[in-house]
């Protein structure tokens, strides 16, 4: 069996590019990586046909001289499946963006929060130290201190709000299915399917 080197080389390049993209954080890049690598592998499947020959038609072509049609069928199946997965990944990336403002695949929330909290607390302690060390507590100093302090607190609160939005629904199969936005849950509190689920 002879194989076309160009097909193999293209497949290798596509797989390499796709693999690299799949190693990144944002879901959209992973999606692109999956599509590219998927195409590369489809080329691999196609190249297992061997050398090209006549089109695989049932009539009008001598059956002994047609290309092997089976890898083409396999590649077609794979393309359809990649399409479905791509659609799902897109939806998931969008949903992730909706919930957290980014489509990155996050580390464990708990880890991230512990890290952020340590960072903010450290900064605040430093700030307070600085404020107390400064002897002249002028009006401007005081205003600046308050502003900084507020900024830090806002950062923590923003992070918590992000998590709270993602946390609204959960655990309850029947309320969350195809769930509306968490904001909708919050709005109809009197309904017993409210934020509490």
């Amino acid at each position: 069996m002879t194989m076309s080197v160009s097909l193999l080389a293209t497949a290798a390049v596509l797989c390499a590019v796709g693999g690299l993209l799949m190693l990144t954080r944002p879901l959209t890049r992973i999606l692109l990586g999956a599509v590219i690598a998927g195409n590369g592998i489809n080329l691999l499947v196609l190249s297992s046909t061997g050398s090209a020959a006549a089109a695989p038609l049932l009539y009008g072509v001598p059956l002994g001289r047609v290309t092997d049609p089976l890898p083409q069928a396999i590649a077609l199946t794979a393309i359809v499946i990649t399409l479905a997965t791509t659609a799902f990944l897109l939806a998931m990336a969008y949903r992730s963006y909706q919930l957290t403002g980014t489509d990155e695949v996050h580390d464990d929330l708990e880890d991230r929060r512990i890290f952020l909290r340590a960072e903010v607390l450290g900064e605040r302690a430093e700030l307070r130290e600085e404020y107390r060390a400064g002897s002249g507590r002028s009006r401007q100093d005081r205003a600046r201190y308050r502003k900084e302090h507020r900024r830090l607190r806002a950062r923590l609160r923003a992070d918590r709000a992000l998590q709270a939005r993602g946390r609204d629904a959960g655990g309850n199969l029947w309320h969350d299915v195809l769930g509306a936005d968490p904001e909708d849950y919050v709005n109809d509190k009197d309904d017993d399917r409210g934020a509490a689920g």
Partner: protein
Amino acid sequence: MNALVPLPVLLPLCATGVSLAFGTRLARFQRFISVAVLSAVLCLSVMLMIAADRQGPLSVHLGDFAPPLGITLVADRLSGLMLTVSSAVTLSVLVYSLGQGMADRDKETPVAVFHPAYLILVAGVSLTFVAGDLVNLYVGFEIMLVASFVLLTLGGTGPRIRAGSTYVIISLFSSMLFLTAIAMTYAAAGTANFAQLAVRLPDLPLGVQTLVQALLLTVFAIKAAVFPLAAWLPDSYPTAPAPVTAVFAGLLTKVGIYCMLRTETLLFPGNRLGDLLMAVALASMVVGILGAVAQTDLKRLFSFTLISHIGYMVFGIGLATREAYGGAIFYVAHHITVQTTLFLVAGLIERRGGTNELTRLGGLARAAPLLAVLFFVPAMNFAGIPPLSGFIGKLGLMRAGVADGGVWAWVLVAGATVTSLLTLYVMAKIWNLAFWRAEPPGQTAYGTVLETADDSDDDDADTGPDRIPGTGDEGVGPPRPAAGQTVASTLQGRAVTTTVRPPAAMTAATAGAVALGLAFTVLAGPLTAFTDRSAAELIERRPYVEEVLGR
């Protein structure tokens, strides 16, 4: 009889269409369809199993195209058994989730997407069990995976999307590897049909055979969550709803084990990678159970025991004798049932106690005696206490190991014993913490809606200049957790309605699953005879190949 083989795949697929069409308008009809179809699939599977046992493998060439071109579906003893156990388990999980839905559902929208996705999952699992060629196996995997993506991210909440991303990406990666393996196999052997491959592969150079085998084993090991490739599982399973986690834990990993059994026996006889398999089996058992010892969240803990007990089945596959295969097949059947049951019980515990965090549970043995029984029986079964089926499965595997007598086999027998004891320890820990001890003082009253008290970030006990009394900017101390109550990190703000009495359907479904596990004990004689015959058939290979090619 042969015409029945495609039905376990076709029925759920057709029902999916009907279910989607009637979907939200006729909710009751939708539920009826799902239950009826799954019951029909169960009956069909039992018939297929009996027929395959009596007359040897059954096969169908769809559209009557001969093997290299056409789609071949085959049901032999192993497929029949797997179909039967899987459809029994999916039926009980469906009833469980219906019970949960009836209890929680409000007047409007029932689930639009749960039933169709669940039916497609069943169709995909059935297809992998009856697939007669690699490409169909791949398609079956994909059907199953796409449905599982939907089920895992049901509702699209933050934690689920995060957990789902990991799962989707690792699944995509393994699918790509699988497709590469198919391309290689086809380029080397000119076919993807199992029976034809069984004939043609031995003629290939040894290196090519080993490459294909290693690639396929890697793919199936990712699906089956064998240790070095299992990190995705405890990360992604626990966030899904209880019934979904239960069916995933029971079925999806075991599909990987089934594929390993099928390809190792049919395509690559001679057990060239046996030592490697035994090494990963040992690592899987030990690392998994040690992970479980460290956990305090019930669902996470069960995820780790799942990884650990996958090791037993891989052990059987690595030994590759008739007794070992028989033991592994028995263990697969046992493990599907018991692992699913344990996850269902975890769901019930969550509804009763309000959390899955063991440190916050307690006193359930007095408060919910029935629940205690429902947990105790599968837990003992899982740990392998003598009269129960877990013991029989482990005994079969260990006897095969001793009969083999090699160094690796003895190491594995020792490892399996230690793992079994540690499993007992873990189960005793759950029993003591959740059921036997008195209620922790901070435990929430029943019927309350729980949310995490999660304001602990802003622990401003400071007296900074902006903490001026009377301005509305006073520092507020962090809410102190009640005594004995930890602010559970794993709860992730999930709200749970605790009920004194779980819905009858949920309890009944769990009890049914427990009973199925006990049935393996009662029917242990016929069942071990059956698994032994399946193993013999797998090793002989001839009946399968002749059934597919000899027509």
